[in-house]
C-alpha cells in the first residue's frame, strides 16, 4: 500500500513540475472529519458511517473529496473513528488512492475520539500539521471557489498577526427557511468580517426566544458590527497551525463552534482572532435527514453547479442529463407506460415496471421497481426491490431493502438496510426501521460526549426495552408483516442522544418537515426531562442549567459520586500541597469524565477548603482568622477556573455561606468574613459580584447570625468604593 502510494507520488511530481517548485509551506493540507460525532442518521449509521451514505447515488465523502481536489489540496488526512475500517476500505478502493489521485490520502484511525476537540488534540500529538490546513467535515456538499477563500485568508493573515482561522459561511437567501440544524448568530466586525462573538440560537421551531448576550468588553475598539443569523455554517475552515495547540491547552473544548470559536474569540488571554469568509456560493452540510432531503433536491436541481450528477464524479458512472432535471445512467430499463417526472435520477441496471410514476426521486442502481407504483420525493438506494402497487412518499429505502406489494410508506419513513416488508403493510409517518435491533454497544460507537452518559442512557434503554420487549416485538411484527424482517428504531430516543449538540433546542429529527410541528409539543417535554441528566458544559449557560437541576429534585448517582470524588481530590491536593495547576487539572478532568457542571465543582471545592479550615482550628494549629487566610489565599485562585461570570460568583458565595453554616464553627461569622475578604483581596471576587450577592441574599433566619460581620464588611466596601470614586471625581 505504502509502496504504491509512494510510487504514485513520484509520478505525480515528475509530471507536475509546478508541484515540485511549490514550497513545503505552501503545500495545502486538509483534515477531513469522517465522523460527525452525532447519531442523527441512526438507524442507518449503525451499518454504514454517515460519510458513506449515498446522496444522489454518490457516497457523501466523495463530495468533500471532490471539493478538496478542486481546491488543489496536496495532502488529505481522513480522521476515522466510528466504522473506521469501512471508511478505510472504501478509500483504499476508490480513485483517490490511485497513483493519479490529485492528492495523497492518509486515513488516520482515531477510535477513541469522541468530539472534534479530541481529534484536534490527536492531530497535535501526531504533529502532522506543517502549515495552514483545511478543516472540513466529511459530509459537505459545496461549489465554493476555494481559491478566493484562501486569498481572503492570506490577506487577513497578512493584516492581522493574531488571525488564526477563517470560517466559510454561506449566505442564505431570504427564501431559505431551514438554514441549518444548528442555527447560530455570528457577530462580525463590519468591514473586515472579524468574528467578534458566536452564539447558538434555538431552532425556529422551538419555543424559546432567541437572544444574544455580548460582553461589552468584546466590543471595545469595534466601530461597527453586524449580527447575522442568515449564514449557513458549512464547516469549512482554514486553520493556521496554531489551532491544534489551542485545543491541547484547553482540553475541555469539545465542539468546534460552541467551544472553540466562542472560547477563542471571547478570551482576552489568547488574543486570537477568527475571521469569517462570506460567500454566495452553495455550501451545506448533510447533517440531518432534512438536510439530506434538501441537499439531494438541490443537487439534482443543479444548484451546486458545476458539481452536477452528469459530470460523473465516480469513474464507473454514466449519467446523462435530460431536460426537466432528469438524469439517467446507461442500461436503465423503463417500461413503456411508466412516467418519469422532473428532478429524478435513475442508476444503471434499474428496471421500472408498467404504470409506475416517479417524481422528485433518486433511484439507485440495480433496483427492481414493480408496476403501478407511485414514488414521490423519495430516495431508493441501490439494490432495493419494490413490489407492485406501492405508494412511497417522502421516504428513504436503503440498500437491499425488499418491499412487498401494496405497501404504503407514509411521509418521512426510513427503511433501513436489508429490511424486508411483507405485502399490504402500511408504515406510519416518520417510522424508522432497521433490520437488526440496535444494540447498546452500537450506540456507544457513536460519538457522545462522555462515556458515563452513554452508560447511563444505555442502561435506561435496556431496561426500557426489556420491559417493553414483548409489546414492542408484537407491534413490530405487525408493522413489517408476518414475513417481514425489521425492528422499529425508537426515534425519540435517538434524538435524545443529540442533546449534547443541540442542547435544549431540540427538534424531532425526521425527514419530514411536516412532522416537525406534529412532534413539537412532545419534543419539548422530553427535552426538559432530559436536561436533568445531561448537563451542558458551556460555561455561559451552566448557571442556567444548574437551577434546573436544583429545581428538579432528581440528584442522580453520578452527582453524588462527584461530590465524594471531587472532595477527595481537593483534600488530597490540599494535604499533599500540590501546586495549583495540578489541582485544577485533576478537578477539571474529573468534572469532564463525570460530566457534572461547575456548580458541583464549586460545592466540592468549598466543602474541602472549609473542612481544612475546620481541621486547623480544631487541632488548634492556627487561630480561626489565620487558618482561613492561609487556606483561602493558597487555594482561592481555584475559583477563578470554576466561576466565570457574576451569577456564578454569587452562586459561589451562597455555597460558601451554606457550607460554613453547616460546618458548625464557633465563630462562623468571622470565618465567612475572613474568607470573603481574602478572596476579595486576591482579586478572585469582584465588588460588583459581592454587592449583587448581598442584595439577593436569602433572609432565612439561620443565616442571620452569620451575616453580622459580613454586613459591616460590605458596608465598608461600599463606602470605600464611594469614597474612592468621589476622590477620583475630585481629581
Amino acid at each position, binding site marked *: 500500500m505504502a509502496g504504491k502510494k509512494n510510487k504514485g507520488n513520484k509520478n505525480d511530481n515528475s509530471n507536475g513540475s509546478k508541484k515540485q517548485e511549490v514550497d513545503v509551506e505552501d503545500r495545502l493540507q486538509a483534515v477531513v472529519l469522517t465522523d460527525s460525532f452525532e447519531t442523527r442518521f441512526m438507524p442507518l449509521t449503525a451499518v454504514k458511517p454517515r460519510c458513506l451514505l449515498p446522496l444522489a447515488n454518490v457516497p457523501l465523502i466523495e463530495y468533500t473529496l471532490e471539493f478538496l481536489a478542486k481546491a488543489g489540496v496536496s495532502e488529505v488526512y481522513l480522521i476515522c473513528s466510528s466504522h473506521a475500517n469501512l471508511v478505510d476500505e472504501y478509500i483504499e478502493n476508490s480513485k483517490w488512492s490511485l497513483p493519479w489521485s490529485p492528492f495523497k490520502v492518509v486515513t488516520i484511525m482515531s477510535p477513541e475520539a469522541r468530539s472534534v476537540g479530541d481529534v484536534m488534540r490527536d492531530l497535535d500529538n501526531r504533529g502532522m500539521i506543517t502549515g495552514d490546513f483545511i478543516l472540513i467535515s466529511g459530509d459537505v456538499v459545496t461549489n465554493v471557489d476555494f481559491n478566493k477563500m484562501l486569498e481572503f485568508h492570506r490577506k487577513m493573515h497578512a493584516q492581522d498577526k493574531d488571525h488564526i482561522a477563517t470560517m466559510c459561511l454561506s449566505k442564505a437567501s431570504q427564501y431559505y427557511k431551514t438554514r441549518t440544524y444548528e442555527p447560530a448568530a455570528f457577530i462580525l466586525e463590519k468591514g473586515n468580517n472579524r468574528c467578534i462573538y458566536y452564539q447558538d440560537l434555538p431552532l425556529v421551531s422551538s419555543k424559546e426566544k432567541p437572544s444574544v448576550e455580548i460582553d461589552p468588553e468584546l466590543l471595545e475598539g469595534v466601530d461597527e458590527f453586524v449580527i447575522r443569523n442568515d449564514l449557513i455554517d458549512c464547516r469549512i475552515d482554514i486553520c493556521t497551525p496554531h489551532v491544534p495547540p489551542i485545543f491541547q491547552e484547553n482540553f475541555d473544548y469539545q465542539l468546534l463552534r460552541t467551544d472553540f470559536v466562542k472560547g477563542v474569540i471571547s478570551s482576552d488571554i489568547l488574543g486570537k482572532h477568527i475571521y469569517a469568509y462570506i460567500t454566495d456560493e452553495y455550501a451545506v452540510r448533510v447533517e440531518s435527514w432534512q438536510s439530506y432531503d434538501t441537499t439531494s433536491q438541490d443537487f439534482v436541481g443543479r444548484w451546486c453547479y458545476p458539481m452536477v450528477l452528469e459530470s460523473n464524479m465516480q469513474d464507473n458512472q454514466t449519467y446523462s442529463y435530460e431536460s426537466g432535471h432528469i438524469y439517467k445512467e*446507461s442500461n436503465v430499463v423503463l417500461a413503456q407506460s411508466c412516467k418519469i417526472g422532473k428532478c429524478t435520477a435513475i442508476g444503471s441496471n434499474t428496471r421500472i415496471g408498467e404504470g409506475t410514476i416517479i417524481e422528485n426521486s433518486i433511484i439507485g442502481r440495480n433496483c427492481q421497481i414493480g408496476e403501478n407504483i407511485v414514488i414521490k420525493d423519495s430516495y431508493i438506494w441501490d439494490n432495493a426491490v419494490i413490489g407492485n402497487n406501492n405508494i412511497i412518499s417522502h421516504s428513504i429505502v436503503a440498500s437491499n431493502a425488499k418491499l412487498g406489494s401494496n405497501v404504503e410508506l407514509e411521509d418521512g419513513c426510513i427503511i433501513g438496510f436489508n429490511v424486508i416488508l411483507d405485502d399490504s403493510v402500511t408504515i406510519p409517518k416518520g417510522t424508522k426501521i432497521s433490520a437488526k435491533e440496535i444494540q447498546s454497544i452500537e450506540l456507544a460507537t457513536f460519538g457522545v460526549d462522555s462515556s458515563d452518559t452513554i452508560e447511563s442512557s444505555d442502561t435506561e434503554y435496556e431496561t426500557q426495552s426489556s420491559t417493553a420487549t414483548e409489546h414492542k416485538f408484537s407491534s413490530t411484527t405487525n408493522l413489517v408483516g408476518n414475513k417481514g424482517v425489521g425492528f422499529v428504531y425508537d426515534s425519540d430516543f435517538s434524538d435524545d442522544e443529540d442533546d449534547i449538540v443541540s442542547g435544549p433546542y431540540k427538534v424531532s429529527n425526521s425527514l419530514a418537515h411536516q412532522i416537525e410541528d406534529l412532534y413539537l409539543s412532545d419534543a419539548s417535554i422530553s427535552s426538559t426531562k432530559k436536561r436533568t441528566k445531561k448537563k451542558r458544559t458551556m460555561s455561559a449557560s451552566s448557571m442556567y442549567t444548574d437551577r434546573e437541576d436544583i429545581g428538579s429534585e432528581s440528584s442522580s448517582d453520578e452527582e453524588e459520586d462527584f461530590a465524594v470524588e471531587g472532595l477527595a481530590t481537593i483534600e488530597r491536593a490540599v494535604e499533599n500541597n500540590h501546586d495549583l495547576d495540578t489541582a485544577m487539572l485533576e478537578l477539571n478532568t474529573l468534572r469532564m469524565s463525570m460530566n457534572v457542571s461547575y456548580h458541583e465543582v464549586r460545592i466540592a471545592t468549598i466543602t474541602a477548603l472549609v473542612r481544612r479550615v475546620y481541621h486547623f482550628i480544631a487541632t488548634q494549629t492556627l487561630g480561626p482568622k489565620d487558618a482561613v487566610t492561609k487556606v483561602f489565599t493558597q487555594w482561592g485562585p481555584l475559583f477563578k477556573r470554576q466561576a466565570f461570570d457574576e451569577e456564578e460568583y454569587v452562586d459561589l458565595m451562597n455555597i460558601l455561606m451554606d457550607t460554613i453554616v453547616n460546618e458548625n464553627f464557633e465563630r462562623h461569622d468571622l470565618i465567612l468574613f475572613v474568607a470573603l475578604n481574602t478572596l476579595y483581596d486576591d482579586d478572585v471576587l469582584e465588588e460588583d459580584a459581592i454587592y449583587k450577592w448581598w442584595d439577593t441574599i436569602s433572609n432565612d433566619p439561620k443565616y442571620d447570625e452569620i451575616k453580622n460581620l459580613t454586613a459591616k464588611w460590605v458596608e465598608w466596601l461600599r463606602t470605600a468604593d464611594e469614597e474612592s470614586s468621589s476622590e477620583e471625581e475630585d481629581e
Partner: protein
Amino acid sequence: MSQFSNPSLRELNNANGNNELNVIIDTFIAKLKRKQIVGSYAIALETLQLLKRFTSAARWTHVTELITQLRALGLQLERAQPTAFTCGNIIRRLLGVLRDEMEEEAQEIANENGMNDNNNGNNSSTSEPLISSMFNLLQKPEEVQTVTKLLSSRNKKTKTDFRQIAIQGIKDLIDEITNIDDGIQQIAIDLIHDHELLLTPTPESKTVLKFLIRARERAHRTFTVLVTEGFPNNTDSAHEFAKKLAQHDIETIIIPDSAVFALMSRVGKVIIGTKAVFVNGGSIASSSGVSTVCECAREFKTPVFAVAGLYKLSPLYPFNIEKSVEFGGSHEVLPRMDPDYRLDAVNKTTAYVPPENIDIYITNIGGFAPSFIYRIAWDNYKQVDVHLDNKSPLEKSVKA
C-alpha cells in the same frame, strides 16, 4: 460501454508499464469533469498537449493498434464532458491524418506489387476527395476496402514512421489552432462596411472580438457594435467585451436581451461565435440567447455570420439537440429556495442554432454556406471515426 472500454485502455497501459500515461490522462479527465478547463480553444490546446505525450509514450507494434488506443482515449474524453466537442474533433483529426498515411502506404505497396486493378483506381480517389464522395455513393464502404488491404499488408513491416507522422500531425494542428484568428480576420475586411450596425450575441468569443478589431484597425472602418447583455451567464463577459471594443475606438452599445427584436430591423449583420459546428450546418453557440437572436434575424432577413475555426467542426450529426446543449446551474437564475416552495429553474448555457438560421460560416479556410459544411467535414475526418464507441469493422476483422 465505458465500463468495458475505459479499463481496457488503462489495463493496456498498465500492462505496458505506462503508469505515467494513465496519470496524465486521468488528471486531464478529472480536470474536464470539474470544468477546470473551459472554452473550446483552451480545451483544444490541452487535448493536443495530451495527445503529444500520449503518442510519444504509447507502445504499439502496428499503426492499427495506435488507432485503437487513440479511439479509446477519444471515447474517454468525450464521456468526460459530452458537450465539449473539441476533444473528439481533435482526436478524429489526428486519426484522419494517420489513416490517410496508411492509405498512401498501402497504395505504395500495391503499386510495388504491380497490382494495378480497378480497386486501385477507385482508392486513389481518397486523395481527391471532390470526386470521391460522389462516386463512392454507390461503392462498397470505404473501411471494408481498407480492411482487406490492411489485412494483406498487416504482416509486412511498415516503412513509414507513424509515430513521427502522428507527432507532426499534432504539431500542424497546434499551428493551425493558434493561428486560426489570422485566417478568419483576413475575411473580416471584406465583410464589414463603413457605418454598419452590427450585433453580436456571443461576447465571450475571442474570435469575434479579434474579427471586429481587425476590421477597425486594418480597414479603418467605422461601425457600431451592439452587444447583448447575455443574462445571467454572460453578463460579465459582455461588459468585458464592450470595454475592449471601446478601447479600440469602436462604438459599442450593450443592449438587454429583450431588445433584440426591436433593434433587429436596424441591424446590418449579426455575427456569432460558435463552440461547435455539426455536419448538417447547425452549430452550438456559447450563450443561450443566440438561437433566439438568429431566429429573429431570419425574421428580418438580416444576414447571420458565424465565425468558427476549423477545429470546431464536428463530424457528428445533432440527432438529439437536448444532449448537445449544456445546462448550467440554477443558482444563476433564481435565489436558493426552501424545498417546500421551490421553483425549478433551467439554465441553458449553450444554444443550438439550426442551419437555416445561419447564412454563412467564416472559417480560417474561407467562407462556406451551412449546406456545404459536410464537405469540409469529410475532408478532415474519416467516416469510420465518427462514432468512437462502435467497434469499427476494421478492428473487428483485425481481431478475427
